[in-house]
Structures are given as structure tokens and as C-alpha cells.
């Protein structure tokens, strides 16, 4: 029984891994098409129908390019940097619940890589490891621009992780659990009006999304690779697929950040009237309870991915709208605005919980 569950679960992990990579691949395509459309251009449309084979063509190009090592670079660390960035980016999607569960007879398959009771903490830990990839790569390049980019990345990530964590604490105060599955399930209680956390935590969400932009090094906070000042920042010296890994890691990070935001603030795999739908399928359409549950679970997967794609689109949309912040503006925003706001949000949430305006969470599952 245990082995059977493990077998299913490893399959789920493989699928999650593949899906993260696939989404990151097509993010490169989506970014170019969205950028083109926002600027009244056409974008890549030569490779395959609508240019859909463009990521493959890019990969072939990156693989066949020359492997370049700058003189005086620490070769081992130079290779290790992009690997670390990629590994940490891919690890964090393991705990994200992409759906409730499928039931085949006695087997229950949870649509989640691994369920751990400190899921949120795990994501945070892994994401903050990601900066080491950038740091090591920038340091090993033996280049001033790379080093400056790496230092910027480090200080920026540390600064914004604080505000991000504080914004999240308000959510954790309401949920009383670090498990991402618990947080998702709390956002929809059967038979009651349920609200996603965005309704209870609008301020926290704004702080979180701003920090997510900074954590993933995306515009308007892409100072680590600020090309007007630092050539290309930490990946100045990188070429071929090592460069590709850095770009890939960024897109995987965007995917993970979108997934975390949709799970924490937008109800994850919940969608309106899911329990009513399951009940209706069971009683009116004559489906077995298992089949009804499976259909609803699959629709839940669709809903969580719809939310994730919307957030990814938002990331790209913002990138082609806003100019880059100046470094002092970035630091001022992080330390003097976002952190005090996040602390205020914690106090506000605490007040609302003690006065009972935010109701107590029922452990209904």
C-alpha cells in the first residue's frame, strides 16, 4: 500500500517537474509574443505555426553555441552557479498543491509533489537559496560587472525577503498552519460563503506581489542584470546553455512565484461552486462519488493553472510597462515603505482577529 502510494506520488512529482520545465520553456515564447503585442509588433512567428517551435529553435541555438570560460574564472564555481540557480528554482514547485485528490478505488492520489506541514517555510527556504546561484555565478566570473550584479541581487533579495515574510505572517496568523494544502482548503468551506485570502489581505497581497517581482529579479526591479549600467549583470560572462539555465531559472521562479500567489491569496485549486458541482454530478447525473470527485479535482487543476497563467501574464505585462527603479529608490521602497506597511498589516490583522471580524478558521477537512 505504501509502495503503491509512493509510486503514484513519484509519478506526480515527475509530472510537476516536467510541467514546470515546459511552462518555463514556453514563458520565453510568451514573453516575446506579449512584449511584441504590447509594442504593436508581431513577435516570433517563423518557426512552426504561430512560431510555437521558437523555444526549440532557441534551445538548439543555445546548445550549439561556444562554451566560453573567462580567464581567471573559477571554473568549478562558474559551472556550479547556473546549476544551483536551476536546481533551487525547480525544487520549490514540489510542495505546491496543484489539485485536491484523485480517487481510483482505494488509491488516493494527491495532486501535489509532497505534502509537508511546513510547506510555506520550505518554499521560502529554497527561494532564498536561489540567490546563491546568482552570487556564485557573479563571483566566479572574475568580472567587475558580474560581481556588482551579484552583490545587487544579494542585497535586493535579502531586503525584499523581509517584507515578503512579514506580509505572509499576516496570512499565517489567520490560517494557523504553514501547510500550503491547509491554506488552500481553508479558503473554501463547504456549504458556506467562502472568500479567498485576497479579500481578507488586500494590503498583504500588494506587498507580497511587489516583493515577488523583486525576488524573481523582474522589471521594475531587475537591477542585478541592469544592462544600462552593468552590461548584463551577473550573467555577463555566461554563454551557451549556462546562460540559458540562468534565463530558465528566472522563468521557473516566475512560475513558482505565480503558483505561490495563486495558492495563498487566490484560493489555489478552489473555484466557485465546486462542492455544488460535485453534488450535482453525483445526484443528478448519476455519477459515482469518486468519479464526481475526480472531475472536480481536474477542474481544480485547470483553475489553478488559469490563475498561474494570469499571474505570469501580469509579470510580463508589468515588465513591458514600467521602467526600472534606481538602486536607492529600490532600497528606500523596500526598507522604509514595504516593511513598515507589512508590520502595520500584521497589527491590523491581529486586531481584526481578536475583535472577531475575521472569523476563526474551521478545520473542516
Amino acid at each position, binding site marked *: 500500500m505504501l509502495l503503491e502510494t509512493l509510486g503514484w506520488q513519484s509519478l506526480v512529482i515527475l509530472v510537476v517537474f516536467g510541467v514546470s520545465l515546459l511552462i518555463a520553456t514556453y514563458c520565453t515564447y510568451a514573453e516575446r509574443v*506579449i512584449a*511584441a*503585442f*504590447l*509594442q*504593436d*509588433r*508581431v513577435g516570433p*512567428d517563423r518557426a512552426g505555426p504561430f512560431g510555437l517551435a521558437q523555444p526549440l529553435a532557441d534551445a538548439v541555438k543555445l546548445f550549439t553555441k561556444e562554451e566560453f570560460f573567462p580567464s581567471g574564472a573559477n571554473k568549478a564555481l562558474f559551472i556550479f552557479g547556473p546549476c544551483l540557480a536551476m536546481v533551487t528554482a525547480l525544487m520549490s514547485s514540489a510542495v505546491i498543491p496543484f489539485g485536491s485528490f484523485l480517487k481510483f478505488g482505494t488509491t488516493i492520489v494527491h495532486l501535489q509533489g509532497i505534502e509537508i506541514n511546513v510547506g510555506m517555510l520550505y518554499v521560502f527556504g529554497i527561494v532564498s537559496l536561489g540567490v546563491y546561484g546568482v552570487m556564485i555565478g557573479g563571483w566566479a566570473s572574475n568580472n567587475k560587472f558580474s560581481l556588482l550584479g551579484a552583490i545587487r541581487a544579494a542585497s535586493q533579495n535579502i531586503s525584499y525577503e523581509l517584507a515578503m515574510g512579514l506580509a505572509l505572517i499576516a496570512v499565517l496568523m489567520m490560517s494557523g498552519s504553514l501547510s500550503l494544502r491547509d491554506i488552500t482548503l481553508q479558503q473554501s468551506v463547504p456549504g458556506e460563503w467562502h472568500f479567498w485570502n485576497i479579500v481578507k489581505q488586500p494590503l498583504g497581497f*500588494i506587498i507580497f506581489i511587489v516583493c515577488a517581482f523583486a525576488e524573481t529579479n523582474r522589471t521594475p526591479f531587475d537591477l542585478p542584470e541592469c544592462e544600462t549600467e552593468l552590461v548584463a549583470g551577473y550573467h555577463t560572462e555566461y554563454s551557451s546553455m549556462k546562460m540559458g539555465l540562468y534565463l530558465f531559472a528566472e522563468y521557473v521562479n516566475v512560475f513558482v512565484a505565480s503558483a505561490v500567489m495563486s495558492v495563498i491569496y487566490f484560493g489555489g485549486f478552489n473555484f466557485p461552486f465546486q462542492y455544488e458541482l460535485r453534488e450535482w454530478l453525483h445526484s443528478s447525473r448519476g455519477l459515482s462519488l469518486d468519479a464526481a470527485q475526480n472531475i472536480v479535482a481536474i477542474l481544480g487543476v485547470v483553475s489553478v493553472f488559469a490563475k498561474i497563467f494570469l499571474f505570469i501574464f501580469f509579470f510580463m*505585462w*508589468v515588465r*513591458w*510597462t*514600467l521602467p526600472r527603479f534606481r538602486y536607492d529608490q529600490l532600497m528606500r521602497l523596500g526598507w522604509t515603505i514595504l516593511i513598515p506597511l507589512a508590520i502595520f498589516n500584521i497589527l491590523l490583522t491581529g486586531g481584526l482577529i481578536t475583535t472577531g471580524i475575521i472569523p476563526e478558521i474551521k478545520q473542516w477537512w
Partner: protein
Amino acid sequence: MQSLSNRAKKLEKKPMTLAERAYLPAIFQGLGITFRHFYRALAKKQITIRYPEETRPFSPVFRGLHVLKRDEQGRERCTACGLCAVACPAEAITMVAGERKKGEQNLYREEKYAVSYEINMLRCIFCGLCEEACPKAAIYLQADKMAPPRYERDEFIYGKDRLVEPVSPDNRSKRGIQLTPEQAEKLRGQTQPA
């Protein structure tokens, strides 16, 4: 200094309002603008012309590659009078005149004709003055053909082989060249673009 037009506006730097200092309203405004462009690109046809598949239509008064015309009986109209060469501001046209021999009446319209006629497309500015100068309506600048790029300088000097209008299949037979029906059909397709 007194301004000349008196239209200069005096601007005062005002302290920013709370909405301005909060960034967010301005950011949403900007997002709205870019989304409008995104929607427009999705919903309507983009203005980009995807070149190999689509081509931009020529203007009706476009002046492109030259052609030396023939008359209705397929005889060359040019008499090598040299007026086009005189009119040419870029001095791109050179020609050598010759006398029509007996039995060549079906080839050349007048008694004098151009033995060689060359236009240097690198010098030509496609002004169309040769077309205006020609008394015999022999040279025209086509409205639908451009001088294509080439690799060698020599290739830009267009001789009679490339300038004279191809004979229509019916006229060819008059010149004693027998064409099979398929060849005639093929040539007609080449000379009369749809």
C-alpha cells in the same frame, strides 16, 4: 530674457499628492495603456507586413526597372537617337547606333537602331526623364518591377538582353522561330503577369 513669442508657460514644481507618491495609480494607468495596445494587437490586424508572404503594393506612379518596348508587330521601337542619354541627369545611359540591314525590317521599326543599349543601374536615379525625352515611346520605367540586388558591379549594367521587352509568342513565329504550344503558353505567362 524676454521671450519672443510670449507663449512660454511658467511651471511651478508642486509637492506631489498622496496618490502620486503612492505610485500605484500611475502604475495602473500605465498598465491600462499597454493593455490597450495588447488588445488592439490581438483583436485587429497588425500593421506589420509579413514580407515574403505579403508584399506592400506599389504606388501607381512608382518608377522601377526600365524596359525597351516593341511595337505591335514586335519590332524594337528605339532608334538610338540618344535623347534619353542627353536627358539623363545621372549619365547612366550609353548606346551605339547602327543601320538596319535588308531583311531586318521585322526586327527594327526604323532604319536606325541601337546595336547596344546599356543602363547602369547603380548610376540611375529612376527619375523617369528618359521616358519623358523619348520621341518614339520606346523606353518606360515599369511600375511593378524593381532593380534587384546583385553581387557584382558588372551585373548592374543592363544591356539589351535584359532591357528589351520579350517578344510575345505570336510575334516570335513571325521571326522564324517555331514554338511548341507549351513553350508559347509558358512565355505568355512570363510576359503577361496577371
